[in-house]
């Protein structure tokens, strides 16, 4: 068997991962960019998205597609509302002090994770994909009759995975539009640039913060709903997305959305390609060390420009 088809396959898997990662990391990046706080509980909002997706899908009868569509709309809204409530009850009261916020969100992480363990339980549960057609990947080969197309055995993806990529691109485009073309995006950007000046101009900064915190968590939940038909929902599933989002956000430059998306594509693809050749643990060790060294020696991120 040639290596070529496997590389194509790894690239496609990597693209799915990059798509989900881009959504999750953009949520984290948005919160850091506007509010200047690090949300350690971000991975748990991802996990809640997956768990609510299972809960909604299992309560709606009929074709699996209906349950999935309902989950896709409702789960991010519920998770966003929980996050906004946490922002108003906890983070606002400690005045978004960066260090105390980290401690408080660590507490929030355990509360959400363990509450899920108590209610949802320790099992991993699947959500059925709305459609899941197998798509074989063709490969070209030189035969005596010239270049010929053939379908190597076992090299295939599914229509659902392609949908995940398309959906992530659409959501990110929507987010871009929201930030640059709408009034609420303008308010968010104004708050990001100068909180006190925004307050002086009558922008309800506290409400903007709650909205941004909810929006960030909602993006993570949306990513989780998209991935849950591929990966099952489990109460500990928030750990890896949190770590990877940190890596992506830091490499992309803290708080910069285009940098975050670029870094998500880079990390998603390399992680999947490196895992073909090396052990995944080694790949993770190298990635975490890379992040630490980027923060030490190039705090503006690999793609960021040195901010004032």
């Amino acid at each position: 068997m040639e290596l070529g088809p496997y590389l194509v396959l790894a690239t496609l898997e990597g693209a799915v991962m990059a798509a989900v990662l881009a959504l999750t990391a953009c949520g984290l990046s948005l919160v850091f960019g506007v509010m200047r706080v690090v949300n350690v509980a971000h991975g748990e909002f991802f996990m809640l998205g997956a768990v609510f997706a299972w809960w909604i899908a299992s309560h709606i009868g009929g074709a699996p597609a209906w349950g999935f569509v309902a989950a896709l709309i409702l789960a991010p809204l519920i998770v966003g509302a929980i996050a906004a409530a946490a922002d108003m009850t906890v983070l606002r009261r400690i005045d978004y002090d960066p260090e105390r916020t980290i401690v408080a969100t660590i507490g929030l992480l355990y509360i959400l994770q363990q509450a899920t363990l108590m209610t949802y339980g320790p099992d991993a549960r699947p959500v059925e994909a709305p459609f899941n057609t197998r798509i074989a990947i063709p490969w070209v080969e030189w035969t005596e009759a010239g270049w010929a197309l053939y379908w190597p055995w076992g090299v295939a993806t599914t229509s659902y995975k392609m949908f995940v990529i398309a959906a992530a691109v659409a959501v990110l485009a929507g987010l871009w539009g929201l930030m640059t073309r709408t009034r609420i995006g303008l308010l968010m950007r104004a708050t990001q640039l100068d909180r006190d000046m925004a307050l002086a101009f009558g922008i309800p900064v506290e409400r903007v913060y709650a909205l941004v915190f909810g929006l960030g968590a909602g993006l993570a939940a949306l990513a989780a709903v998209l991935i849950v038909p591929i990966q099952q929902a489990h109460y500990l599933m928030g750990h890896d997305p949190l770590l990877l989002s940190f890596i992506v956000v830091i490499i992309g430059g803290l708080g910069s959305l285009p940098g975050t998306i670029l870094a998500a594509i880079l990390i998603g693809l390399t992680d999947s390609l490196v895992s073909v050749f090396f052990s995944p643990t080694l790949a993770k060790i190298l990635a975490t060390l890379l992040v630490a060294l980027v923060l030490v020696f190039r705090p503006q991120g690999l793609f960021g420009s040195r901010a004032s």
Partner: protein
Amino acid sequence: MSRVLALHLGLVALLLAMHFVLPAYHHGNLARVMVLACYAIGFNILFGYTGLLSLGHALFFAAGMYGMGLAITQLGAAPAPALLAGLIAGLVVAGITGALALRTVGVAFMIVTLMFAQAGYLTILYFGDITHGDEGFVIQPAQRVLWGLDLSDPSWRYLAAWALFSACLIASLALVRHPFGRTLTAIRENEERARLLGYDVALRKWVAVVISGGISALSGAAYGLLFGYAGASFASVQYSIFPLLWVLLGGAGTVLGPFIGTLFMFYLIDLTSGITTAYMLLAGVVLVLLTLFAPQGLVGEVRRRGWGWLP
């Protein structure tokens, strides 16, 4: 001065007296609490007194534990040199990561330490054939005889834990009253001013990281030796969060706080885990409540409400 010394020596004497009166279950628990309190004392020197919040102290704890454990299982070392190996491993790791992480400040420092600890945890998993990853490995009772004292025996174990804790407590008291410790507090309060007064702030912060990492490593090594087990879970994020929780609960920047916090949290978790498997829920609730309502912790509150002389 004398009442400070009397209070701390009184605690040490009380813990020794506990050895003779406590029932077996609490006797075993208190031995554990004392070793873990040393970990909290190490963390407190960096967090409470120097004002640097590390989210990766499990790296040092595990460096001590694995430095000790691997010296025994791989090299066949005796317990005393193994403990020393654990301490040296912790000092070296703290020296290197400290030098790198201290180039950053604030939130970046927390994330860098978190990432280093994560890399350390994954490294333990990666070398699974000698560390046995998450399963960990057991240190046999025959390998735990220190100077003729069998540390697998509950009595000697308690006394060894007590000796280590007393040494760490008195050392931390001496450190914070020493001029060097006072400059650490000065750095915490106002780094710019400390620099202006002519102190080498960068060097002092690095020394604080190394001292803090060394005590944490010693605690990790002792924990592995006394309880006969080393596992990757001791290097996980959870074990970086625990000392933060203990110190915040007891009172950051107080000498007694780490012990009080460890004792309270240990029993809170012990009681909760009897009711539900989701005992970490309690840790989360306590963390949020502490940041909201009592950022000074228990001993910090006592100091604020009258006992201003508490170190």
